[in-house]
C-alpha cells in the first residue's frame, strides 16, 4: 500500500493511530522482500545487525517517534533499534534524502558534487527496522506524545525525539533570499552560491557574513572563507573576500584562522570583526552594518539562527531561542516526554554533526534504560571533532571531549582535550575524507 495514501485515508477517518500500526502492512511486505534478498554487503553497511533488529518488533515494548532525519535524528533512530529492547521506531522526515552540510563548502570550489553528499534512509529501514514516514510534522502534542502530520494524520508514541535542526532569523530587506544565499543548509542555495562565485568578475568583491554565536558549525564560516580565498587565488586572481563577523573575534580555532586570515590569505581576505548586519538591499547588492555599507558582487549572507520553528510552536524553545534539555537524557525541561537533540537543543556543546551523533547515542541509551525501568547513565561523555579546510588541499582539526558535571548539570569540556592542530597539513585533508565517510556510515548505515 502506498504510504501517503494510507496516511491520508487514516486522517480522513479521524483515527488516532500508534505510529507502529500506520504502515504495518507496508512494512511487512517490504521487510520480506529485503531481508530475503539482501546481504549486509548489499546494504552498504559493514555493521548491519543480524536477526530481529532488521525488522520492527512484532510486540513493541515501547514506541518512539523521531522527528527529523539529519545527523542527530538518523543516529538516534539507528541506535534505539540497536540498543533498545523491542523499541518500535518511526522516523519522520520531509525529504527523501539527506543532503550533508558537512563538506558542502567544497561544492563552492567545485571539489565536491551535491550528489556525493547525499545519503538515504534505506539502510536504517532495511537493516535496522526503522519505520519511515516521508512527511512534514506540523504539530507536536508534548503531553500526549503524539504528532500531527501535514496530511492531518496523528501518530502517537511513548516518547518523541525531536531533531529538527535550525531556522534562520529574517534579515530586513532580504526580499529575494536567492540574491544573497546563506548556503548554510546544504541544498539549492549551495549550488546557487557556487554559480554566483563562478560568475563574478576576476577583480570582484564577495562578502561572507558570520552570525553571532551560537550558530551551526562554529568553525564552518571561517573554513569556508579560507576555502573561497584559496579558490579565488587560482580562479579570480584580483578578487577580494570581505568577512563580516558579528562576533567580537574569531569564535574558535583562533590560532589557525588568525594565521590564515592575516597571513596565508591576507591578500584576499579582509576580516572585519564586531560587524552586525542591520539590513540589506538585494537590488543594490549592499549590506548595511554598524560599520557602514558594503557593496559586493556576491553576498553569502549567513543569518543568525535559532531552533527550528517546530520547537517554538511546541512551546519548548525559551528566550534563548534553543531548547533547554536535561543532558543525561536530552528530555526537554518543559516537556519530559519530548527529547531534543542536535542543533535545536541549548547545551554547552557545539552545534555540529559529529557531536549531534553522540548526543543521539546518549539519548538512545537513556531511553533504552528508561523503557527497561531504569535511569539514564549518570555520567555520559560526548565528543566533538572536525576538520577545517584552510586551503583546497590542506586542513586543520579541532576536537573536544565533554564530561557530565553533576554540580552544574551540564556537559563540561575537558580542558586538556579541547584543542586544534598546530597549523594545517595535506594529510589532515585526507583524514578529513576518512572521518566524513566513517561519521556518515555510523549515522546512516
Amino acid at each position, binding site marked *: 500500500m502506498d504510504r501517503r495514501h494510507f496516511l491520508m485515508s487514516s486522517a480522513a477517518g479521524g483515527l488516532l493511530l500508534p505510529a507502529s500500526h500506520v504502515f504495518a502492512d507496508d512494512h511487512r511486505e517490504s521487510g520480506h522482500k529485503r531481508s530475503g534478498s539482501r546481504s549486509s554487503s548489499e546494504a552498504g553497511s559493514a555493521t548491519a545487525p543480524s536477526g530481529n533488529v532488521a525488522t520492527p518488533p512484532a510486540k513493541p515494548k515501547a514506541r518512539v517517534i523521531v522527528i527529523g532525519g539529519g545527523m542527530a535524528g538518523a543516529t538516534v533512530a539507528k541506535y534505539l533499534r540497536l540498543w533498545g529492547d523491542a523499541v518500535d521506531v518511526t522516523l519522520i522526515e520531509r525529504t527523501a534524502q539527506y543532503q550533508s552540510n558537512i563538506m558542502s563548502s567544497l561544492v563552492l570550489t567545485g571539489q565536491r558534487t551535491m550528489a556525493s553528499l547525499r545519503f538515504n534512509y534505506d539502510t536504517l529501514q532495511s537493516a535496522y527496522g526503522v519505520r519511515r514516514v516521508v512527511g512534514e510534522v506540523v504539530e507536536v502534542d508534548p503531553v500526549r506524545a503524539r504528532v500531527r502530520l501535514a496530511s492531518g494524520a496523528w501518530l502517537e508514541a511513548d516518547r518523541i525525539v525531536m531533531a529538527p535542526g535550525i531556522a534562520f532569523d529574517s534579515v530586513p530587506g532580504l526580499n529575494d533570499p536567492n540574491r544573497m544565499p546563506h548556503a548554510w543548509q546544504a541544498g539549492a542555495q549551495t549550488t546557487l552560491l557556487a554559480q554566483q562565485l563562478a560568475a563574478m568578475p576576476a577583480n570582484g568583491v564577495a562578502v561572507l557574513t558570520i552570525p553571532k554565536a551560537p550558530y551551526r558549525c562554529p568553525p564552518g564560516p571561517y573554513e569556508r572563507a579560507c576555502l573561497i580565498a584559496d579558490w579565488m587565488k587560482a580562479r579570480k586572481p584580483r578578487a577580494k573576500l570581505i568577512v563580516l563577523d558579528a562576533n567580537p573575534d574569531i569564535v574558535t580555532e583562533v590560532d589557525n584562522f588568525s594565521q590564515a586570515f592575516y597571513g596565508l590569505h591576507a591578500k584576499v581576505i579582509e576580516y572585519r570583526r564586531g560587524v552586525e548586519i542591520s539590513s540589506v538591499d538585494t537590488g543594490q547588492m549592499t549590506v548595511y552594518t554598524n560599520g557602514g555599507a558594503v557593496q559586493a558582487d556576491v553576498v553569502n549572507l549567513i543569518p543568525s539562527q535559532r531552533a527550528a520553528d517546530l520547537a517554538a510552536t511546541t512551546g519548548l524553545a525559551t528566550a534563548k531561542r534553543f531548547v533547554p534539555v536535561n543532558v543525561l537524557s536530552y528530555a526537554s525541561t518543559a516537556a519530559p516526554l519530548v527529547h531534543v537533540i542536535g542543533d535545536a537543543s541549548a547545551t554547552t556543546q557545539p552545534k555540529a554533526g559529529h557531536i549531534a551523533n553522540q548526543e543521539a547515542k546518549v539519548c538512545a541509551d537513556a531511553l*533504552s534504560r528508561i523503557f527497561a525501568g531504569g535511569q539514564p547513565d549518570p555520567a555520559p561523555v560526548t565528543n566533538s571533532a572536525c576538520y577545517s579546510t584552510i586551503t583546497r588541499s590542506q586542513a586543520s582539526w579541532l576536537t573536544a571531549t565533554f564530561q557530565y558535571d553533576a554540580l552544574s548539570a551540564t556537559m563540561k569540556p575537558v580542558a586538556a582535550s579541547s584543542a586544534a592542530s598546530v597549523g594545517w597539513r595535506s594529510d589532515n585533508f585526507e*583524514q578529513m575524507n576518512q572521518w566524513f565517510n566513517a561519521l556518515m556510515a*555510523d549515522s546512516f548505515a
Partner: protein
Amino acid sequence: MNITPSPRLLRTTVVALATLLAAPLTLAQPSPPPAGRLLASNCFQCHGTNGRGPGFEQLAGKSPNEMYDKLREFQLGKEGDGIMARHAMGYTDAQMRALSLWLSTQR
C-alpha cells in the same frame, strides 16, 4: 566459639538460594546496558559502529590491555600531538579501561 554451621542451617540456606535462583526473571531489577558501551560509542564516529569500521583503525575484538595501553600512550603524549592524543585526554583512566574492555568483546 563454634562457627561450624548446623546441617539444618545449611539445608535452609541451600533451599533459600535455590528459590532465589529460580525466581522468575520478571522480578529482577532492570538490567543495565553493558558497561562501557555508551562510552565506547564515542569511538564509533571515526572507527565505525561497534568499532567495526568503516573508518580509521578497526577496534572491535582487540585485546583490552593493548587498547588501554595505546590510549594511555596517546593520553601521555607518547604518540605525538595528533587528534587522538587530544581525544584520549578527555577520558578518565577508569573510562579508558571500561571502553577498551567493551570493544574487546565485539567481533
